[in-house]
């Protein structure tokens, strides 16, 4: 019928993953890097959901719920750590002179 072919979803998620990786490698700001990681996580999530379309057990959707939860946990803890790094070094750039990561 009018269903979207599976390959389209996979191409979009491949592009999202590589753009997320590019952001992670390109940017110095830690919050920027975190946003890139989040983009890669969502690309994987889109794959899970696109494949579970044809699964009558819908395991992919259930798994993507847990991926969402883990992503949020990662985000909160990472932002708290970035906040402490900012308090300590007054700078959140990776590879900056002051912080020397």
């Amino acid at each position: 019928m009018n269903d979207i072919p599976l390959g389209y979803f996979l191409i979009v998620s491949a592009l999202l993953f590589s753009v997320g990786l590019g952001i992670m490698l390109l940017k110095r700001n830690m919050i920027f890097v975190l946003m890139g990681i989040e983009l890669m996580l969502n690309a994987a999530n889109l794959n899970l959901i696109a494949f579970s379309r044809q699964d009558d057990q819908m395991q992919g959707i259930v798994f993507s719920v847990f991926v969402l939860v883990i992503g949020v946990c990662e985000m909160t803890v990472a932002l708290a750590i970035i906040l402490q790094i900012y308090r300590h070094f007054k700078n959140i750039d990776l590879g900056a002179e002051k912080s020397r990561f």
Partner: protein
Amino acid sequence: MNPMIASFLILAGLTCASALAMAWTKNLLHAALAMFLCMLGLAGLYVMAYADVMAVAHLLIYVGGVLILILFGIMLTHTPRTDPYDVSNDLWTKQSGRFWALSISLSIFLGLLWILNRSMASFGMLSGEIQRSSKLTYLGLALLTEYSFAFELAGIFLLIALVGATYIAKHHE
């Protein structure tokens, strides 16, 4: 072109364009705005994949929660400007060398496309019928019966992460 494909192309274009804008811009706040658009497009793509529950959950969590968290992070880690009368936007961020980032991500994208192109024939062997109905009832039942242990574990994990994050973010004198 039928409306399903057309709306998919619009949503996919929104998602990909805002992701590329995130990579392009150097302004942290513009990147947060682009991430908002990207998450909206992704939620639309979930609807196109007949996963309505995940679309709503994704909107609630990412646009309502994570993005606000990122904005607070941007505000709290904002380096104060030296000249108080300078009203220009100073959220510019530094970048590493463009060459390696561009070449690595482009080669990974092309490699993924190559793999997808080679395995496209085997996707036709996925035998299951596409489920077009709403997944809400099934997902609720599955989370509370078959996956109840993992569900409770995820709840405890969220609690631990939130308590840990507030403890880490506290002022330690």
